C-alpha cells in the first residue's frame, strides 16, 4: 500500500514524510500526477500561502486527486491542504480549491493574534470519526495558521480561537486537519496511524 505525499513546493514536507516513516508506512513524495493517481492513499500537506495550491492546478495533480477521490481513495489534507478542500480562501480569492464543501476560508478577526500558533484543544463533535479514533475531546494539538475553515456539516472536531472553526473535517473518504499531526507529539502520530490503517 502506497501513500502519495504530494509535493507542490509549498514549504517543506520533511516533517510529514518523517512521521509516516516513523509509522513504517510506505510513502512516496511526488509531484507526478500519474504517481498520485496510482497511490492507495493521498496526503496533501501544506504550510504557507493558499496561492501555492495554484501549482496543483497547473500540474495536472488536481485532476488526479479528483479522480482518486471519486474512486473512494482516502485523501488527507493538512493545514493549507485542508483549506484547499473548500472552494476558496480570502488569502488568494482567485485560486480555486476543490469545493468539496461549501464555504470559504477566512482570516482570524483582528481581536486575536494572528497567526494562531501553538497547542490548542480539540472539541470532538463526531464520535464516529475514523481519523480521530481514540482521541479524547480537549486533547491538545499544534496549530500554525492565519486562515481558518468555517464550521461545516462535515466538521469532526472544532477549535476555539477568535470564534469556533473546523479543526478536523471528515466525510466518507475525505479527511482534513487544520492542525499539524506530524508536530503534535504522540497524539498526532496516533491520528496519522488511524489514517494509515483505514
Amino acid at each position: 500500500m502506497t501513500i502519495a505525499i504530494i509535493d507542490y513546493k509549498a514549504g517543506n514536507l520533511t516533517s510529514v514524510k518523517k512521521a509516516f516513516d516513523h509509522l513504517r508506512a510506505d510513502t512516496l513524495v511526488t509531484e507526478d500526477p500519474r504517481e498520485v493517481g496510482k497511490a492507495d492513499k493521498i496526503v496533501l500537506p501544506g504550510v504557507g500561502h493558499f496561492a501555492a495550491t495554484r501549482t496543483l492546478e497547473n500540474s495536472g495533480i488536481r485532476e488526479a486527486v479528483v479522480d482518486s477521490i471519486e474512486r473512494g481513495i482516502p485523501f488527507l489534507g493538512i493545514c493549507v491542504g485542508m483549506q484547499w478542500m473548500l472552494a476558496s480562501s480570502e488569502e488568494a480569492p482567485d485560486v480555486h480549491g476543490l469545493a468539496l464543501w461549501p464555504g470559504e476560508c477566512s482570516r482570524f478577526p483582528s481581536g486575536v493574534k494572528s497567526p494562531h500558533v501553538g497547542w490548542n484543544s480539540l472539541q470532538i463533535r463526531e464520535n464516529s470519526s475514523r481519523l480521530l479514533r481514540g482521541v479524547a475531546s480537549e486533547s491538545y494539538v499544534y496549530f500554525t495558521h492565519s486562515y481558518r475553515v468555517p464550521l461545516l456539516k462535515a466538521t469532526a472536531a472544532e477549535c476555539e480561537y477568535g470564534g469556533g472553526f473546523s479543526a478536523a473535517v471528515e466525510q466518507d473518504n475525505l479527511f482534513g486537519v487544520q492542525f499539524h499531526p506530524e508536530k503534535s507529539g504522540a497524539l498526532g502520530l496516533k491520528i496519522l496511524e488511524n489514517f494509515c490503517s483505514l
Partner: protein
Amino acid sequence: MLTKRIIACLDVDAGRVVKGTQFLNLRDAGDPAELAAAHSCAGADEIVLLDITATHEKRNTLLETVRRTAHELFVPFTVGGGVRTLNDASAIFDAGADKISINSAAIADPSLITCIAERFGSQAVIVAIDAKRNLSTFEAFVSGGRVSTGRDAAQWAKEAEDRGAGEILLTSMDRDGTGKGFDCELTRVIAKAVRIPVIASGGAGGAEHFVEVFRAGSADAALAASIFHFGLSSIEQLKLRLYAAGIPVRLSC
C-alpha cells in the same frame, strides 16, 4: 483554549549541547538529539536549537545535528544561529527544521525575512531580537548582544512583522543568565507593538517567573535553556505549577 508554550532551548557548539542541561538518566548529556527527545517527552511544547558558534567550517556539522535531532522529534523544531541567506535557511529546513530563527542577518538585510517567508511561509520565520534597556526604551542589539544597532526594539519588531515574520523571539540582555526573572516590561512593550506571538527569553529563575511573564508580560510563550537548574525537576513540574496558578498549559499526554 490556546495554551501558553514552554520552549526548551539547546545551545549547541560543534554538534554538542554546551550549557544549561542537567538531565537525569541520559547516556550523554551533551547530545542534542537525545536531549531534544527527553525535553519533548517531559512536556516541552517546542524545541529550539541555537548554534552558538555558527562558523563557516562547522555548518555541515550543524546540518547533521539538525538532521539527527529532527529525526525522531514530533513537536515543532526551530533552528537558529548563523542563518544569513535563503540558501542557509533552505538547507536547515531540508534537514528537518520547522522554523528558522534569524537575528543579525535580518537587521543587516530586512528583506531576508520576506524572502524566507515567501518561500517557506511566515509560520517558518522567527525574528530574534536581543534587547537592552536604554532609559525608558529598549534598543535592539546584534552579535550576541555586543553590538548596538541604534534601533528601537518595538519598532524593529513591528517592521519584522510587516516584512513577514511569524513570531518574535525576544531576549532581554539585561536579564539573560541572571535568574532574576523575565523582563516583563520589555515583553509587554513588544507584545503590544505586534500582532504576532512573542516568545519571552532571558532571566528565568523559577516557576513564578513564568507566571509573571505570561500574566504581566503578555507573553505567548517562554523559552529557557537552563530549565533544569531552577530547582524544578522537569518541565512537567513547571507546567503543573503554571496550571495551579491558572495559566493554560498543555499537560503531558
